[in-house]
């Protein structure tokens, strides 16, 4: 029952969802909280190290992570570098979480507002619906991630300058992460939210369930901080490859789940 993909219809869905998002003050505030935390916390941590770079405890902590750390290497600088590498994993929670907030509203919200049936009675296809709604969730998520990244770089560099005397950020890892991994992670969060919100009746329930997917990410960061996992370029590249595969699976599943018959029979 579905025909050729028509970009204009997908863009119509994007236009409507984006317009709706712009007018949803509560959701905008929710979306702003996480980036604010993601930017200010690491800047505060770096500032703590820079404030007392010669504190004896810093070397103790640094040696916990790397017992071979040479004496002539600054423990504060080592910990700053480690914090920034580890925090990168945490930063990736943001592009996963923000689309969950938006996509949960946009799909389950259609059911709640009883707008689903008029929408499905239009010529729009499932693929166009997924594309339009995904774009409306992904674009703000990626944009917010990039804006937060710029603020994060500026903040870290300003705070670290007295100790490092050179710009620390952006570095290659973060550049790769923010411009390659973040969109992949955002797609992942969006895909999970679309699938869950296609199966539950309330946007809030969809948000709560979909948000559970950030827990493994937080767990990985916990492993890094505990010294169990060693994060680096290879580690994040592997993470990206896994998420890419999941993205493809989620995309196919979302288009199948947004099938008219299924949605109307269940929720119409």
């Amino acid at each position, binding site marked *: 029952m579905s025909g050729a993909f028509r970009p204009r219809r997908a863009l119509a869905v994007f236009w*409507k969802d984006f317009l709706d998002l712009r007018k949803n003050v509560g959701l905008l505030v929710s979306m702003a909280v996480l980036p604010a935390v993601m930017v200010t916390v690491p800047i505060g941590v770096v500032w703590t190290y820079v404030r007392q770079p010669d504190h004896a405890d810093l070397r103790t902590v640094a040696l916990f992570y790397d017992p071979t750390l040479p004496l002539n290497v600054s423990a504060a600088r080592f910990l700053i570098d480690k914090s920034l590498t580890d925090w990168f994993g945490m930063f990736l929670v943001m592009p996963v979480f923000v689309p969950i907030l938006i996509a949960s509203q946009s799909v389950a919200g259609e059911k709640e507002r009883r707008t689903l049936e008029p929408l499905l009675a239009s010529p729009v296809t499932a693929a166009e619906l997924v594309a339009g709604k995904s774009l409306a969730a992904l674009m703000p998520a990626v944009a917010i991630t990039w804006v937060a990244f710029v603020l994060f770089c500026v903040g870290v560099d300003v705070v670290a300058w007295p100790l490092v005397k050179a710009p620390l950020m952006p570095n290659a890892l973060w550049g790769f992460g923010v411009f390659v991994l973040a969109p992949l992670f955002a797609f992942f969060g969006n895909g999970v939210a679309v699938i869950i919100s296609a199966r539950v009746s309330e946007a809030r329930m969809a948000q709560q369930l979909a948000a559970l997917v950030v827990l493994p990410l937080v767990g990985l960061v916990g492993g890094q901080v505990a010294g169990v996992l060693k994060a680096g370029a290879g580690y994040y590249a592997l993470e990206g490859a896994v998420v890419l595969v999941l993205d493809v699976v989620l995309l196919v599943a979302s288009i199948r789940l947004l099938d008219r018959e299924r949605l109307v029979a269940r929720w119409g």
Partner: protein
Amino acid sequence: MPRVGGTSEPASAAEPGGIRVQGLGKSFGERVAVEGLTFEVRPGEVFGLLGPNGAGKTTTVRMLTGLLRPSAGEAVVWGHRAAHDGEALRKVVGLLTEQPGLYDRLTARENLRFFMKLHELDEATVWPRAQHYLERFGLAGREDDACGGFSKGMRQKLAIIRTLVHDPKVIFLDEPTSGLDPESARTVRDAVAELAAEGRTIILCSHNLAEVERLCERVAVVKRRLLALGSVRELRRAGQALEVRVEGEAERFRSVLSALSFAPGVLAEGGRLRVLLADEAHAPDVVACLVGAGARIHSAVPAQRPLEEVYLDLLKEDVT
């Protein structure tokens, strides 16, 4: 077998417009929602789809608008097969759902523009049509207000405009005057009549039988299956009642008529007898019986039963 009217025949199946439904059925797992529906609706006709809640009206409409795939039978809507040409079909149909289903944070204009975009219409060209309906339904000047602040009636009117904005050939209206004040309801009814006069096919689902009587040429009464099909006039006569005015008290002839096997019910009031008939062909027999019993008859006319009465009888018969 459903009762089928015979005087207002629908268009032939070869006619490209209109709707042709043949043996249509839909099951959800073990549950049969609709079975064996067969009817035709011609272009320019307002057709009523009646039935109690849960009778399968909405499921039928969803099949005819390409939202649900039929489990059995076939439906052709304005030349498009409902089971296979869903996308093409949805371009020519307009669906007013029971709930207005508007985006509350968006303005009336934005709600309408969204559906213009979904239909890939040139907004500059189509907007005058939307503006025409906005003015007609008393929403002019409110285009840029958020729909969340609209009253129930305003929301319903905007939903109707949204249904019409892409100039559909076939229009499905589920309770179109629900929540409207009498003046607005009349505006909607006039609009429906005009749309039909322009050659569009209109399916009206409503529990407001007075409205159905006023607007629809033919109706189908469904309760999972087709219970009756015909013009409103035919259905009203389908109760086969005969109204007889006699000289003097009618009560004295009641027992004579009650003995007739083809007259299952007789009411007497003053000089008036209301005789229910198993078949209207027995009307002359009733008159002959009365004359035989010495009645002086002033008039004997087929009774025009209210559609509501016929409808309720049909549902009652289906239970028994």
